[in-house]
């Protein structure tokens, strides 16, 4: 148990990095533009975990001041990530609008087919 516990207490970092790297992999490896944007949002949400999980204190509670509690988790990462979520949706919306326009101009959302068409012109 003594060797497992430190790994368990770093498990959230491992998963965070796994999600981050998966998002990066999707963005690089997949040619479909909607899939690319999904990969980008996976990457973004891994950053939420990266910020919020160090702010947690094991005996703490949500940072809403009340006489019954004295230990609160750190509110600052929560504020930063609230901003990040909303900005993430704004970028996703802009990217999807671009995808709609690209589909209109080329008739496809596959990157390879668009490159082939550009070469053919």
């Amino acid at each position: 148990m003594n060797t497992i516990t430190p790994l368990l207490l770093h498990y959230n970092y491992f998963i965070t990095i796994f999600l981050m790297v998966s998002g990066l992999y999707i963005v690089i490896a997949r040619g479909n533009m909607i899939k690319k944007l999904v990969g980008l949002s996976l990457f973004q949400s891994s950053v939420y975990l990266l910020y919020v999980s160090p702010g947690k204190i094991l005996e703490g509670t949500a940072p809403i001041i009340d006489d019954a509690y004295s230990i609160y988790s750190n509110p600052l990462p929560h504020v930063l990530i609230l901003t990040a979520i909303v900005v993430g949706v704004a970028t996703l919306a802009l990217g999807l609008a671009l995808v709609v326009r690209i589909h209109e101009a080329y008739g496809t959302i596959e990157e390879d087919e668009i490159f082939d068409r550009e070469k053919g012109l």
Partner: protein
Amino acid sequence: MIVLVMTVLLTLLAVITIVIIRQRSLFAVVILTGVYSFLMASVLIVLDAVDVAMTEASVGAGVSTVLLLATLYLTQSREYPQPRPAIIPLFVALGIGGALIAGTFGLPPFGSADTPIHNRTAPRYLAKSIEETTVPNVVTSVLADYRGYDTMGETVVIFTAGIGVLLLLLGRRRRYSSETGEEIQGE
């Protein structure tokens, strides 16, 4: 107990991510992204970030999924099989992942209270929030008061993105009306 719940939820997140990578049907990918967002919201509740969890459930699982589904309706919902090799991306991902995981061993363990981020600005916000802003929810008081300029910047970003989306899609409608819907054949 909290560590156990976290471990289960995070493992589920990782499984969903693997399925998203392997799935070829874009409709399934979009729905799985919604599931992923709800799981992420559950993880955030366990991490005491209740405001973030609520935003993630409504914006991440709600608005994002609707936007993705609308785009699928306007384009096509099938992903073609991968023609190019995936070795270089895999190599890049594994390399970066290995380096980052090696870096995590220098980070403090999950849930400890004596780390630097708990000892600098946050205690002051927690101690003075009621006195200075009369708001018991510290996240609200920091967001709207102490770091109000951040939130204004965020609003500017959303406004800019909204203008961008409108400009991109308005040009689309104009062309539809002038060419009497010939573009639909691309589907």
